[in-house]
């Protein structure tokens, strides 16, 4: 078996234990796990049927070289930076168009439904990227431990996908204006997350610095997630036995 697929299996198992564990532990149960399964194929769908054709069409229409660098027109670099966030954040919300899924939404469940949808998307993305890597001839003979960078980055990104979708879903409950705000918020978080890889792609940063950059979106997304959780917890009644107060 190709090393990248072994790496993908390990990454998927650890991600499920880590982020599935967080989902199970913090949301107190497994009722949101079904939302994880829904979005697993969405990464391949959005990449193959939306992002790739749109990107190729834009390259052709504006007559731009596919080898991006700092001299590529700025408008096109902005287009590339926002192509993934705009399309991926939209498709992750797609299941909520279905009334059967939407009726599960409540001020408490929205955070966990969003998190589950994002985690599912992230798990699917591991396999979409592994499939892409498996077609690169240079990687053919590499054992799985050559892909530790892929494994650690993907594990983190699964969590980040969860947070970004949570932001959008929590705001959906505030009507269409809130929904739009949440979607834009998620798109900006996504663009921030991709920014390091984007700077590497246009040959502005080297790989080491671009890899270290992931720490920034991790901290920002963890802060956002904890803020959302705090809001929910404050709105809920807490069972507390007071023995003494003055």
């Amino acid at each position, binding site marked *: 078996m190709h090393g990248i697929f072994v790496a993908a299996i390990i990454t998927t198992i650890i991600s499920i234990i880590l982020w599935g564990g*967080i989902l199970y532990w*913090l949301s107190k149960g497994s009722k949101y796990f079904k939302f994880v399964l829904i979005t697993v194929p969405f990464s391949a769908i959005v990449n193959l049927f939306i992002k790739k054709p749109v990107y190729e069409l834009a390259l052709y229409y504006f007559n731009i070289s596919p080898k991006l660098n700092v001299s590529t027109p700025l408008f096109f670099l902005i287009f590339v930076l926002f192509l993934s966030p705009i399309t991926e954040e939209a498709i992750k919300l797609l299941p909520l168009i279905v009334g059967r899924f939407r009726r599960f939404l409540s001020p408490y469940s929205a955070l966990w439904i969003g998190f589950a949808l994002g985690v599912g998307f992230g798990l699917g993305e591991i396999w979409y990227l592994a499939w892409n890597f498996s077609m690169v001839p240079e990687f053919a003979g590499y054992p799985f431990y050559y892909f530790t960078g892929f494994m650690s980055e993907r594990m983190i990104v699964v969590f980040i996908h969860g947070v970004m979708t949570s932001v959008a879903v929590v705001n959906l409950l505030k009507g269409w204006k809130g929904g739009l705000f949440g979607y834009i918020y998620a798109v900006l978080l996504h663009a921030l997350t991709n920014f390091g890889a984007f700077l590497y792609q246009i040959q502005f940063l080297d790989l080491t610095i671009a890899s270290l950059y992931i720490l920034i979106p991790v901290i920002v997304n*963890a802060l956002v*997630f*904890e803020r959302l*959780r*705090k809001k929910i*917890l*404050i709105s809920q009644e*807490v*069972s*507390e*036995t*007071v*023995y*003494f*107060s*003055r």
Partner: protein
Amino acid sequence: METKVYFPRKSLGWFFLAIFVFLILFTAFSMIYLYLTTGILFFIIPSIVFFGIGFPSLIILFSLPNMKYVLGDENLIISCGFLKYIVPLSSIRKVSKRDLQISLWSSFRFPGLALFTVPYVDVGNVKMCATSASKGIILIESDSGLYGITPLDEDTFISDLMNRLRR
């Protein structure tokens, strides 16, 4: 009133801490081994970091059996090895029991064990010396901060503390 000593309820926190200490020290010694076999100085830096985390954690592991809550006339002393909080009874504003919501931020917290300052999503920072990370925590709010403990004989501890607070 005489000084009374209360011990925490039992948990498997020591087991999870032992695994943590083993993994950290194993990694630290592996780094030293790599340095000795390859001569690459770079391996020294992570080994120092891992030893810096591993050895204090090992000391804490051995001091867990000494975790106790000493209730005197003037103070409540919460201690575990070199961790010691002195809470003057006159400074206590509220005593309650509740489950806490853990946060994603790093702290000295394992299933069945929480020590030092631990951030919680719902109540903020709590100075913990408890054999539970979130369930059934006795919270003591005082002028010097919020403390979290888990006495084994909870009813006796609470009634003893109430008697001293109401005097």
